[in-house]
């Protein structure tokens, strides 16, 4: 069972309490009975970022509950750029993001989830331009290219 420090231990057992927090977390009971937890900054940042990512994912799940034709850009919230993609690609994103969140949980890092979102956003930006979208999504045209030299 985890040891619970008392508020008075912040003075009398400061070093012990700090060491416990550094290797995981330290639980402290305030004088009114409120439970507090001290933990490394990196761990706290990870938990907070992961909470935000899961919050967005749950909101996205709610959006996918609606029929595709009824979804508006605002329904996607921070993922509004997803409207650049069709239904199939949107669902592929959802699946990849879920995989990335699982990896984030397993690896104690939100980097997989952030990378997944960043990569999809990059493609969304590319497809948001009409000319770029036409070429990137169209068939290859052999005659449309010209050789260029190294910029000088």
């Amino acid at each position: 069972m985890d040891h619970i420090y008392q508020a008075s231990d912040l003075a009398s057992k400061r070093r012990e309490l700090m060491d416990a927090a550094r290797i995981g977390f330290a639980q402290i009971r305030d004088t009114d009975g409120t439970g507090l937890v001290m933990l490394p900054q990196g761990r706290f940042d990870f938990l907070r970022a992961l909470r935000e990512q899961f919050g967005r994912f749950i909101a996205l799940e709610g959006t996918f509950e609606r029929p595709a034709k009824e979804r508006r850009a605002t329904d996607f919230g921070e993922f509004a750029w997803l409207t650049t993609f069709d239904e199939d690609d949107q669902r592929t994103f959802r699946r990849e993001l879920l995989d990335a969140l699982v990896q984030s949980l397993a690896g104690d890092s939100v980097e997989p989830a952030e990378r997944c979102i960043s990569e999809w956003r990059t493609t969304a930006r590319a497809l948001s331009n009409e000319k770029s979208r036409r070429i990137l999504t169209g068939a290859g045209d052999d005659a449309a290219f010209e050789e260029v030299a190294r910029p000088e």
Partner: protein
Amino acid sequence: MTTPRSRRSRALSETDPAPGGYRPYVSARRPGERPADKPRYRVLVHREYLEEWKSLPGRVGLPNAQQFWDHVANTPGQPPRVGTSTVMKGKHNGPKWAGYSKTIHYEITGAGRIDYQYADATTEGDKGDAHAVVKILSIDLGSH
């Protein structure tokens, strides 16, 4: 008849001196990397983006433009040393020609994005010989 050997060639043929030894006629190697060899990949740009290509040095700076060209002309399938590259997402990322890669997004830090596909050995073109090609599909210098 024997040809007199120069002091430098004699010095070069000697075994390595002891650490700290000094060989006065052996020149030091050029610092840094070797000058670029002939690029492996021919670089082609979609005609609709030739103007953007020409303006690239002015928009992102000549060193960045050259860095991009060196990357795609030699190692288009590897992560760049400067900037970032990712594979395009979604169903439209596939090869547009037989033997080509998926579409790659290359992001020039803070300056724009260039999308391309590459092939290690394609026989496209008049000569019909197998050669390596990079095709730049689109250039966006305005959204970053």
